[in-house]
């Protein structure tokens, strides 16, 4: 068994769409790479892409400059 395969065998496999939040919290407290922590805490869909947060619809006061 390769090292990667051994690692995969040990890694907890959560059902799709589930997150172990205590693991995420621990990663955040120990400054672990959050992407790697997230990968261990859930199955990340391959097609997951960053989402653009909609800009606020609040009207800003126009500058007079």
């Amino acid at each position, binding site marked *: 068994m390769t090292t990667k395969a051994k690692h995969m065998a040990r890694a907890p496999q*959560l*059902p*799709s*769409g*589930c*997150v*172990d*939040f*205590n693991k*995420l*919290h621990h990663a*955040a*407290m120990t400054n672990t790479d*959050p992407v790697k922590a997230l990968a261990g805490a*859930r199955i990340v*869909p391959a*097609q*997951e*892409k960053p*989402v653009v*947060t*909609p800009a*606020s*619809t*609040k*009207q800003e006061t126009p500058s007079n400059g």
Partner: protein
Amino acid sequence: MADLSQKTVLGITVQASAGTYNAPGVSDCYPIANLRPTINGVKVTNPEYSGTVHKPGDAIVGKKVSLSFQMVVRGPGGATPPAAGDWIPGRLLRAVGFTEVVTAAAIPAAAEALAAADTDNVTLGDGAAATADLYRGLALNLVANGVAPKSLTSIVAYGADKVAQLPEVFGAAPVGNYQIPKQLSYLLSAAESTVLLSSSFWLGRVRYNLVDVAVSAFKATFTASTQDSASYCLYDVTLEGKIESTADENATVLQPAGPAPFFKDGDFWVDKLALGGSSFSIDMGVKLGYPPNPNEADGNDAGQIVETTRTVSLTLNQQLKATKDFIALADAQGYHSIWAQFGQASGNIVSVLIPEARFDYQSPDPSGDFVTQQGDMLIDAADKAICITFPYL
């Protein structure tokens, strides 16, 4: 003997992959109400001339199955949150696009002192991470702020400075300890759902098995229970899928899901103000699509949610302008939170948070005993835009 409608049972499982039926067993069944299955033929009108006014009947090309039902809003109960993937209503929520977030141990392990507090925000202590957004949508126990569940609140926003914005405003800044309690949370994910379900429903002595089941409609309605009128809070769900098989099999006898929490003796805060009102609902505005694929028996792959438009509908008691000017709020189109919490028993407390929504105009309605105002709030955000949490004390 005719089959009895009361012997209606629904089971739900998550499929490992599209097209692979995962047969629900007895432990995958959960009480539902008002099940309405429909099996409709997919028809196309024959365009050919028949040499007479009498045209041939439509061609039957396939079948489309949908399943509408209601499920009572209640928590999983027990002493600790269930293991990931175990809770049956959670499978539905995951199929809609919520992420199931299991916090099996309280954070921090022992309640610790707040670093600072204001009337509508608190700064968490050393046991909390300085990671922006990390705790958004989760329940927070301000331990000294009353007897639980009254001491529970929710986190609308969380900054790298450890400041947690709250959906309510206290008369005085909270003091004492805090803890993020054990909880089972469903936080809307920015990513589309990748969860496909298998479902079986029994009607008396007949079992129908569905594969590649996706959610085509999802609405949660929270109705206040009063001395005049009591109501369950309900999810209205519609599923669509393909018939995998049918069989003559008796419906199983369900274990009762236990008492449900009622929307009273709790919290209902709109834009950081506790307001009276009869109900609010969250409609996911799901649009389900079927990718064409002639290799498949039905001519398409499994259904996928192709878009959602998320809306909150409110029915509030009319408010004085001096209390809250809803017309001005709709004019301004800023973002405001909605938070409701009800239920008393650990694991059966329901906390519903919409961190950011814009007001549509609310119409006054004097048709009943009390003047009410009805209108929508619109949700732009995706990630953690709707948070349903079941805290454990």
